């Protein structure tokens, strides 16, 4: 094949970038066997360690292993780094394409399956001035055929704009060259291609190699035989860049604004891991045994993995026979006095509905984590969506109120998992925590807290004087019932999913009693608003005449995108983490704006909820439902209308 005349050498390109940038978006893209997630994660972690803000978006195919080299098997990992980073970025500034299929997917975006598609600003995953590094060894006729090209020139066929800088690098042969004396077999050698690309990117960003090599040693700690060859390849990749570009300035990110950050320990963390650790921290703080009942489901399973591995922290993780048993074993553990949790995604939440109703009725503490994915039914298991809000709020029989929280960044999955446990244990109620695929798999910078900084948790207990005449209907002054469990002498009682008598705690079908109990359970949830923080508004410092009265409203994982959009628009914005109950000052905040735009990745579930709570306030809505996070520019475009 021929390299297009549009392609050029490193030296030519990089002179374009001889300025310092505030932030930059890099996308690693290759076959699902090419190690793109590892490469992207290592790059993001190094960036974080060097003090940059990061936000990442892993974007892997639904197939575990699609045929090698095909369009269906392309796996991507996008990271934005720098300062003022709120999202993984709409479009990439730098693309690493490991094969012909990856080049096509990056260029055509969601249109990659259209036979006649070519570069289009709306769909391409990189912008018109991006650098595209491509492995020229992976553009053979056979590679092109597998990726469904019709001609032998992918660049012309895809109609990549002139302004895009294509950097052809024979990654495969350079990697083979680097490892020719290693004695490794061909297959193992080829697995190191990603490290060559990573070395090149490190050079491009002028990152120090010592830290990079240290990081690599950490990553391969369990496979020490791989450290030497991978180090060799990464260094060769770095040197390749160095040798080709003697006199040019590489991309250098603005010094991070470290003064604004509290001096503290940081790490990069994925949302699912942060969730798991939030549960662990809460259990220790509360002095409770952590019990997880769960059934594997994408994209929540990593929480089960993390907790199953933490027996050293006294975590009991039961992989149940189904979703229902997942929540029911947890309810059993809660009945027996534990901090009990279950983790799932939308379809699993549907299956758990009846049992969550039992926990509402029996007034037991229970944390349900729903890592939302595209629905309905099996839907888009590996993609992100905010479509379980109504299910979390209302998806149960009867008048069945539960607390609903939503995390808004990968790192604050920790805080809201912790908060979910605190609310559940202190208020004897199920708490549903909504995260989603984007938060679960993406990573962000997390300031590592010490346990003592975290708010105290006081699990509900029972006054000693009730010994001998306890019943499960007795409540404290807040309206929260007392908690006694097997093993406690003198507090034997029968709990039920049937309606109970408000005084005696026994089965009751009395009409007035039922209404009283429905309202008591509702009141119990409402009073939780007394102990949650006020809704905060992020105010814009550069308001224009038009943007002054505009408020962008979001909930959950869209926080970064809305923050970036609000910055671009010069308007205020607010993000909800507490959905039910809502913060006490919600009306006060909303009533200050003339134009409120509720942005969500569904058809308007939160907007509908807000309308139901504040019928006198007007809500406009902006929705996308494509299984992907928002594109900031589209929000800005809509709101500017």
């Amino acid at each position, binding site marked *: 094949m021929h390299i297009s005349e549009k392609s050029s050498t490193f030296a030519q390109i990089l002179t374009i970038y001889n300025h310092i940038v505030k932030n930059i978006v890099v996308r690693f893209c290759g076959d699902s066997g090419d190690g793109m997630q590892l490469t992207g994660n290592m790059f993001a972690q190094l960036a974080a360690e060097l*003090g940059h803000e990061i936000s990442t978006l892993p974007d892997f195919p639904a197939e575990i292993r699609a045929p090698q080299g095909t369009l269906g098997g392309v796996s991507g990992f996008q990271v934005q780094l720098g300062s003022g980073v709120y999202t993984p970025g709409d479009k990439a500034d730098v693309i690493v394409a490991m094969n012909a299929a990856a080049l096509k997917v990056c260029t055509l975006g969601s249109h990659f399956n259209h036979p006649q598609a070519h570069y289009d600003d709306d769909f391409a995953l990189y912008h018109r001035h991006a650098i595209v590094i491509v492995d020229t060894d992976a553009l053979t006729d056979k590679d092109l055929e597998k990726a469904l090209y019709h001609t032998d020139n992918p660049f012309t066929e895809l109609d990549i704009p002139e302004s895009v800088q294509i950097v052809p690098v024979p990654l495969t042969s350079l990697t083979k060259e680097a490892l020719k004396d290693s004695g490794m077999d061909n297959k193992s050698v080829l697995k190191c291609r990603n490290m060559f690309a990573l070395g090149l990117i490190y050079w491009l960003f002028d990152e120090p190699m010592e830290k990079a090599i240290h990081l690599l040693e950490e990553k391969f700690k369990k496979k020490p035989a791989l450290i030497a060859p991978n180090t060799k390849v990464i260094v060769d990749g770095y040197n390749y860049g160095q040798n080709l570009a003697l006199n040019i300035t590489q991309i250098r990110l603005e010094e991070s604004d470290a003064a604004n950050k509290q001096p503290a320990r940081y*790490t990069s963390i994925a949302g699912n891991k942060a969730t798991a650790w939030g549960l662990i921290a809460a259990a220790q703080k509360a002095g409770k045994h952590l019990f997880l009942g769960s059934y594997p489901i994408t994209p929540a399973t990593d929480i089960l993995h993390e907790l199953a591995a933490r027996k050293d922290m006294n975590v009991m993780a039961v992989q149940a026979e189904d979703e229902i*048993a997942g929540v029911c074993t947890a309810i059993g553990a809660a009945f027996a006095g534990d901090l009990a949790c279950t983790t799932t995604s939308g379809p699993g939440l549907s299956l758990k509905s009846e049992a969550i109703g*039992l926990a509402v009725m029996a007034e037991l503490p229970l944390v349900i984590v729903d890592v939302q994915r595209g629905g309905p039914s099996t839907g888009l298991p590996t993609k992100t969506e905010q479509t379980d809000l109504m299910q979390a709020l209302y998806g149960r029989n009867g008048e069945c109120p539960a607390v609903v929280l939503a995390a808004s960044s990968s790192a604050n999955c920790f805080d809201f998992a912790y908060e979910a446990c605190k609310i559940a244990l202190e208020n004897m109620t199920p708490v549903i925590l909504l995260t989603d695929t984007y938060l679960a798999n993406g990573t962000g910078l997390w300031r590592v807290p010490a346990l003592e900084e975290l708010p105290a948790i006081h699990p509900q207990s029972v006054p000693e004087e009730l010994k001998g005449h306890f019943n499960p209907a007795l409540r404290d002054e807040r309206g929260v019932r007392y908690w006694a469990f097997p*093993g406690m*002498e003198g507090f034997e*009682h*029968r709990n*039920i999913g049937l309606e109970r008598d408000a005084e005696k705690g026994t*089965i009751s079908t009395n009409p007035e009693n039922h209404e009283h109990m429905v309202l008591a359970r509702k009141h119990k949830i409402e009073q939780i608003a007394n102990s949650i923080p006020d809704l905060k508004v992020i105010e814009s410092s550069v308001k224009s005449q038009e943007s002054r009265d505009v408020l962008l409203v979001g909930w959950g994982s869209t926080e970064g995108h809305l923050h970036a959009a609000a910055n671009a628009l010069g308007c205020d914005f607010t993000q909800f983490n507490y959905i039910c109950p809502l913060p006490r000052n919600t009306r006060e905040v909303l009533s200050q704006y003339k134009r409120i735009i509720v942005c969500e990745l569904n058809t308007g579930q939160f907007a509908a909820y807000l309308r139901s709570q504040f019928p006198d306030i007007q809500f406009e809505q902006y929705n996308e439902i494509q299984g992907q996070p928002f594109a900031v520019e589209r929000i800005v475009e809509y709101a500017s209308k």
Partner: protein
Amino acid sequence: MQASDFKSDQYVRFCPGCGDHAICMALQKAMAQIGIPTHQVAVISGIGCSSRMPHYLNTYGFNTIHGRGGAIATGVKTSHPEITVWQMSGDGDCLAIGGNHFIHEIRRNVDLNVCMFNNRIYGLTKGQYSPTSPKGFVSKSSPFGTVERPFVPAQLVLGAGGTFFARTLDVDMPTTVDCLVAAQQHKGCSIVECLVNCVIFNNGTHAWIADREQRAEHSIILKHGEKMIFGKDRDKGLAVEIDPVTFVPKIIVVPADDPRVLTHDATQPDPTLHRLLGLMGQDRIVNVNAETDNELPVALGVIRSVEADTYDQAVNRQITEVRKKAKIKSFDELTATLDTFLL
């Protein structure tokens, strides 16, 4: 301890004449005999007539949702193995809506004592056929007779790898108490099939053996280490015959003094004979119209009781072992293992 220590203050609301009354009393007697204090006992149930049982026992109790008692009991026992956990369930709750939890609690061998009340009918919903109703059974939901093959609970339990199976009859109080006590003493998932009469919707369903006149001829009470002898005059015994061509073993009735009469070994790990014993007399429930000349008695008592590691113990042991060697024991030690950096 006295049976009355285990009686709650609740009025027992089973229908007059219902077999559940007898099992309720047997449970109170058995619990007193076992002697575990009331606060160390949790009784978990699903939904159905029999699932009302926790209300009548002065222990910790949880009357949950239909079919899920097994999963909830598994959660209680696994998180707190020091608590004695009973599960009360019926043929619908356990074998239909809760079938998955039932086979998995058996497969895992969770140390639970499960009373499965089998009246071969849905009583609380007023008379529909159940997974144990015989084929051809006419009910409100099967006006032309069922076309389904029923479960034989013994076969299901052994198929799932059950370590304990006993069968008892509402009208036989001593055998019921013995089975319940044996279930508690057995470490593992102990299933006690309680054959109970539903006076309202399925009266006489177990008359073949419940009828005082016929019981001695139609049933045998198995006792570990004792010869398998039955009959009004204790003149009949059970032996095994192996078909010389197919090698299929079957149980036959022989005179009580025949040297081939078997001695019951409930602790035999191989379930072959336990299965054959469990299936005796069950062809009558498989098909309501069965014209059978099968003279085999229905087996009552503890059919199988073998030792095996329990899930709750194994899970807790694994945690203890990991913790013994672990360097990390607190959240702060856990975060110290992170690759962090100072900013």
